[in-house]
């Protein structure tokens, strides 16, 4: 056979190899997609979670590997290529016979005739037409891939009631609802305190929680989202911390309580300065300012500098400069205070998000029957303890502030969480809760609560009495009108500050 004929034969063989490789890749991807659909079907019952991206990515990767491996390993012989051409071009086994003759395997009187006919036939062979690679692509691959997409669009996240998958789904919903409710409070509080970053993040988390509740989503996806969200909130917190550190320089970050104290003191100085009319009073203010500057170790440098300026202005008798310096110090402090509050709110937010993610991620088998029932009925579960802690731990009695829940507790009568109703217990005031719980049915039963008020916790005072301004009583009244202090405690708070004021006098 001529060189051209050989070339045509080799070209056909090469295309056959590609065709086989494509077919193999199709089979592999078919298997991948079929497996994906099987997993999707299983997810109706079991909490099997394989993200769609994994299925598509895995199938594509396997198909690509098969394609390359097939091209290298599934190379047909020249004889097979000749046979294919014989069949597809209607050559009636002319090429295979000719190849047999050319290789000395067939002896015939008609040797030359067969070879000539075969060569002539090969010159008119179009390997691309004979071995179409594109048509080898199995349409079932597209059908299965489309089926997988449609499945996810139409049935994605659907679970059969009473199955482990359904329980997982309900857990995600319940946790999302719980997170949303908590974040709403954090958001409201942040907005009230004009903590813009915290409010913004709270809004974002709230939207994410709502999306988690409403969307059909797998456990893994939910956990991933919450992780990303927690990272985002943590980033915002770090940004706030960075700003605060910028203000403080090398100084240690003061506690929020300390910042509040400083702020309160400055407010008092301003107030006293405005009402001071005699030199003696001014001298007393100057001394107090000096005391504050020298005796307060954690005072930020910018504040210290402003106080120094105020003191010098006071000595000079420059009223305007005193006011300006004190005002500046107060503004700086308020800014720091806001940043500290923001950090705190963001930290709480991040913690909530992380805790929700951990609760969702915790394997179902680690939950108690009560928790499972809570999940199904929509009640929030306990805060997540390390796996096995409950089983390993001994029976622990309820601690103050630890609101244990029983079955059928919730947001409505007979259902839901006490924490949802009352919020977290404050740290500064001991609260004793007495509960009278009636076992009800979901949406039905009855829950009565009684709250006993108590005195503040006996701890070290966080404010130095000498720093408590004289006018704190009036200010506390104003503050109490502005701040959200529960009505029963208002009198207690007012009396506390008045007592401090009296001591100072």
């Amino acid at each position: 056979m001529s060189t051209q004929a050989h070339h045509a034969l080799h070209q056909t063989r090469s295309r056959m190899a590609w065709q086989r490789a494509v077919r193999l890749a199709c089979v592999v991807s078919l298997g991948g997609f079929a497996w994906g659909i099987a997993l999707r079907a299983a997810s109706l019952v079991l909490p099997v979670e394989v993200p769609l991206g994994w299925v598509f990515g895995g199938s594509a990767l396997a198909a690509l590997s098969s394609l390359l491996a097939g091209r290298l390993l599934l190379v047909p012989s020249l004889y097979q290529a000749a046979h294919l051409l014989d069949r597809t071009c209607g050559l009636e086994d002319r090429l295979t016979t000719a190849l047999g003759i050319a290789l000395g395997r067939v002896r015939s009187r008609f040797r030359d005739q067969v070879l000539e006919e075969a060569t002539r036939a090969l010159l008119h062979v179009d390997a691309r037409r004979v071995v179409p690679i594109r048509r080898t692509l199995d349409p079932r691959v597209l059908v299965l891939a489309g089926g997988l997409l449609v499945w996810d669009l139409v049935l994605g996240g659907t679970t059969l009631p009473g199955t482990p998958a359904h329980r997982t789904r309900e857990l995600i919903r319940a946790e999302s609802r719980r997170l949303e409710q908590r974040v709403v409070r954090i958001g409201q509080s942040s907005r009230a305190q004009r903590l813009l970053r915290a409010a913004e993040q709270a809004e974002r988390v709230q939207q994410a929680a709502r999306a988690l509740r409403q969307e059909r989503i797998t456990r893994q996806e939910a956990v991933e989202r919450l992780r990303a969200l927690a990272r985002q909130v943590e980033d915002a917190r770090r940004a706030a911390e960075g700003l605060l550190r910028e203000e403080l320089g090398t100084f240690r970050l003061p506690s929020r309580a300390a910042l509040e104290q400083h702020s309160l003191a400055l407010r008092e100085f301003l107030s006293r300065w405005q009402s001071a009319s005699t030199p003696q009073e001014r001298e007393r203010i100057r001394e107090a300012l000096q005391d504050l500057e020298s005796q307060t170790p954690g005072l930020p440098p910018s504040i210290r500098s402003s106080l120094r300026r105020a003191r010098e202005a006071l000595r000079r008798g420059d009223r305007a400069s005193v006011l300006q310096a004190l005002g500046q110090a107060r503004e700086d402090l308020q800014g720091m205070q806001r940043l500290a509050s923001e950090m705190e709110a963001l930290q709480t937010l991040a913690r909530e998000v992380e805790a929700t993610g951990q609760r969702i991620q915790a394997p179902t088998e680690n939950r108690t029957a009560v928790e499972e029932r809570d999940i199904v009925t929509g009640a929030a579960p306990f805060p997540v303890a390390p796996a096995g802690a409950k089983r390993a731990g001994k029976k622990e009695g309820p601690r103050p502030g630890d609101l244990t829940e029983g079955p059928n507790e919730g947001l409505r009568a007979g259902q839901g969480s006490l924490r949802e109703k009352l919020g977290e217990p404050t740290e500064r005031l001991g609260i004793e809760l007495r509960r009278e719980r009636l076992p009800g049915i979901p949406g039905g039963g009855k829950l009565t609560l009684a709250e006993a008020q108590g005195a503040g916790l006996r701890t070290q005072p966080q404010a130095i009495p000498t720093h408590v301004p004289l006018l704190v009583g009036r200010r506390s009244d104003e503050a109490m009108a502005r701040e959200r202090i529960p009505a029963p405690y208002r009198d207690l708070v007012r009396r506390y500050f008045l007592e401090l004021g009296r001591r100072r006098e």
Partner: protein
Amino acid sequence: MEIHEFQHLYRRIRSEIGKVMVGHEELVDLVLVALFAGGHVLLEGVPGVGKTLLVKTVARVLNLRFSRIQFTPDLMPADIVGTNVLVTDEHGRRHFTFQPGPVFSQLVLADEINRATPKTQSALLEAMQELAVTVSGVSYPLERPFFVLATQNPIEMEGTYPLPEAQLDRFFFKLRVPYPDVASLVEILDRTTGAFLSEAEPVVDSATVLAMQALVREVAVAPHLLGYVARLVEATHPTSPRSCALVSRFVRYGSSPRGAQAILLGAKVRALTAGRAHVSAEDIRSVVLPALRHRILLNFEGEAEGVDPDRILRDVLAHTPELEPAESLPAP
């Protein structure tokens, strides 16, 4: 002889036979294929469908010496092959002289071969296979070309002796002569009941037939087609891993290697009649049924259910790949 000459002569032979034979084109083709391949043919059909006429016409067209043996239960082997007779010469001396029987011809019509006893039937064995007859220790070669065309009636089985497997195997093809369709019947009536009876003219002679037979052997066969034929024959064996479900269920013994030879030679003739110097897979498939249908032996279940061997062979054809997936041509 060249291929185009073969093709030309074949067409002329076909045409001459067609003057006498109405319809049965495929049957005529297969008879000629067997003759040019050097094989014998067993024709099976009800009486009056033209079996004998076909054989006579073929003999005339091929210009071969023709003899007809009507097989009957009382027919003796000597009636076929001939015998030594006591002859007195002009000097009054008596000696035995061999008197050739009707088998000493070039085209022998063994009519209703299954009516003779197996002993008589077996008399044809040597003649068919060895192309020679041995009488009283003396072997007498038969004139080439030599063809036996036997007929048998598949309906009247009373008082018949079915051919033993060994003898069946000697037949190159077993052909079924179907009942003519209405159009062919009309044509037959027109041709045979009128005043003018058409006659076939001789086209070739013995030497030409032998040359044509020799040319058949020159046809090239691709290696994978040899394998295909072998696989087909192997697949008729119930114990073979290649056998299909029908073979496993209904066949006791599969085809002998003679079956494979018949397929390949028949395919070669087919190739030549198509003007090709090489065999195609289609040539092979076209002769599998006539070459193997009498070579597979049905088991009791197959016989009881009246399974047609053609059905089994079609199944074999359907399940046997032309080229094995891993088949390749090893280096010479």
